[in-house]
């Protein structure tokens, strides 16, 4: 991809998230010839966000395949491909359309190992963009991670930086278990940063302290990490020490890092873009109650989307948590006696 600055081997390049993803796909297809890509508009068009640009030219149309518009058969075919010994990396064009494939994802992809007692290795990666802030039509922006997290057998990676987009995607493709790899639409071009050149793998299940702080910790994932960091930086100006924990993966969940951060601060805020009810933030609160109840100095506060479908463009900014709502929640937690 063009437009990237590199400081050479062993160094880093400044990349947007979509560039990091594209480079990683190139590298993984190069590394392992069993890797095949399938999805809608992924070949000739290079993906509707250019995440798969240049791949069909390099690896040919046997390994980079434009699929008919059927999310179910995209997901379902990965099961067969995995059984045949391939390493499928499928794209669902928008996460909201994973609903069309839910029976294959939840009932088949996630259970292939369990059902067959590991006779078959579901080395399957499902990539999908999601998340708000870019004025998409219905069902393009919905955050469904809380629903997927209730489906055993799947792992869920949700990078918040370009660096992690590379490192977690490489890890996901190499995983012997199915990974749902979720890419924030706002981050494709809106998030950029230094990305290590060459081999770079970030293990699944290890959270990242995006900011260190001791008054309160904000727990977030994907694009909300960016917003939480902005909130932390703003409040630092007021002398508040706000930590930000980037979960990176929801499954496996880094319970240890959560426990450590919350026990350290005694106060926590959890941010998600999903509707409040039964979103993954509820799981984080329950986990905190399990692990650090006696250290809590105030109730954990959730910042969420509202309990309505992801709305149309003019209502979007009201719906999606922003820096202001995160700051208000932080203040509430800190003011809580």
């Amino acid at each position, binding site marked *: 991809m063009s437009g990237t600055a590199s400081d050479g081997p062993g160094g880093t390049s400044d990349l947007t998230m979509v560039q990091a993803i594209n480079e990683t796909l190139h590298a993984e297809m190069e590394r392992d010839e069993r890797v095949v890509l399938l999805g809608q508009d992924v070949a000739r068009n290079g993906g509707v966000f250019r995440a798969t640009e240049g791949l069909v030219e390099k690896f040919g149309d046997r390994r980079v395949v*434009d*699929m008919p*518009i*059927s999310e179910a058969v995209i997901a379902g075919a990965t099961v067969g491909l995995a059984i045949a010994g391939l390493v499928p990396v499928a794209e669902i064009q928008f996460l909201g359309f994973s609903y069309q494939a839910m029976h294959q994802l939840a009932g088949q992809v996630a259970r292939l190992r369990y059902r067959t007692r590991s006779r078959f290795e579901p080395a399957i990666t499902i990539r999908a963009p999601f998340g708000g802030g870019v004025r998409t039509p219905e*069902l393009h922006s919905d955050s469904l991670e809380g629903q997927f997290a209730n489906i055993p057998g799947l792992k869920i990676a949700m990078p918040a930086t370009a660096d992690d987009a590379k490192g977690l995607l490489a890890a996901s493709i190499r995983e012997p278990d199915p990974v749902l790899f979720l890419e924030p639409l706002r981050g494709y071009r809106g998030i950029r940063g230094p990305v290590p050149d060459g081999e770079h793998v970030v293990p699944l299940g290890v959270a990242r302290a995006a900011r260190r702080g001791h008054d309160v910790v904000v727990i977030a994932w994907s694009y909300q990490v960016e917003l939480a960091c902005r909130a932390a930086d703003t409040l630092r100006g007021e002398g508040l020490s706000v930590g930000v924990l980037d979960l990176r993966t929801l499954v496996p969940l880094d319970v240890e890092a959560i426990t450590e951060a919350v026990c350290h601060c005694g106060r926590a805020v959890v941010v998600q873009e999903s509707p*409040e009810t039964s979103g993954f933030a509820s799981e984080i609160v329950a986990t905190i109650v399990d692990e650090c109840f006696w250290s809590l100095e105030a109730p954990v506060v959730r910042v969420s989307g509202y*309990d309505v479908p992801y709305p149309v463009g*003019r209502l*979007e900014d009201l719906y999606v948590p922003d820096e202001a709502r995160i700051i208000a929640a932080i203040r509430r937690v800190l003011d809580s006696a």
Partner: protein
Amino acid sequence: MTAPSDARLRDIFVDMLIARTQAGRLWNLQRQGQVGTVAPIDGHEATIVGAAHALDPEHDWVVPQYREPLGLRRYGPEILERFMLYNLGHPAGGHIPEPIRVLPNQIALATQIPHAVGIAWGMTLRDEPGVALAFFGDGSSSEGDFYEAGNLAGVLGAPVIMLCVNNQWAISTPVHLQTAADSFAAKAAAFGIPGVLVDGNDASAVYDAVDEARSRALAGRGPTLIEATLYRLGAHTTADDPTRYVPAEDLEAARRDDPLLRLRGYLEDRGLWDDGAQEATEVEALELLDRALDRARAEPLAPGSLLDHCYATDTPRLARQRADLTGGSER
């Protein structure tokens, strides 16, 4: 089956020209950042308008995908109004007012086809006359919903018309990667219903096919699958760059078969159209669009709209969230 009269064909042409003209203006406005993403209707006018004119707006339902609204004038000026609201991201864009029998745009491909079957079935249960016509694209035909709905329609003998608008492309994916079937119409065999292939650039042929399917349906002889073949003359949407994948020569050839040129020629030959009519209609089209846009821009929008209409009445949790949102609460 009745072929459309020349008067009807002139009406159809007017609607086609208005749609094309408005689409062009919207494209430019989008480029200027004044309106949202647009999926151009260019090339689809004969099919969409021709089909709409074969229906009876008082009794028949139209269940669109997302490319149709500018072509549905026959169902009333409210369609344009609501489409502008929709385009500007106003929630009222989804509310097509009573008693208009048109559903709002569907974004999740093919999900609308089961809805159309349900409507058609429901009308028979209520002993109401009328049919439901679902538009969907060649790409959408690959979704299970298309097949499951077609199969159910066949079993029920529901008065539904499944109109596959084959514009040769699904974003960048050409039809030969979408299916190996001889045609989309051929898929009717899977449902045990008639499959009709029609030239989608010929408004008269589309009108005929829909009219015939409608008569069949009303006579209790069940559903029809129609494939209208045409060519997408524009981009998939304003967010798409078709030069990456559409062969220039194919597009060139398709432009020569532009459905507007064809029908205009027919009407001009019969003295039913001339440059004056053309110009007046284009002016009218833009005026209508500008007025609808102005009204849409002026439509008020309260923050509480975010939470309205999720449930008939707010659940307690939503009521609490409403208080949060509108500042009525400490939280």
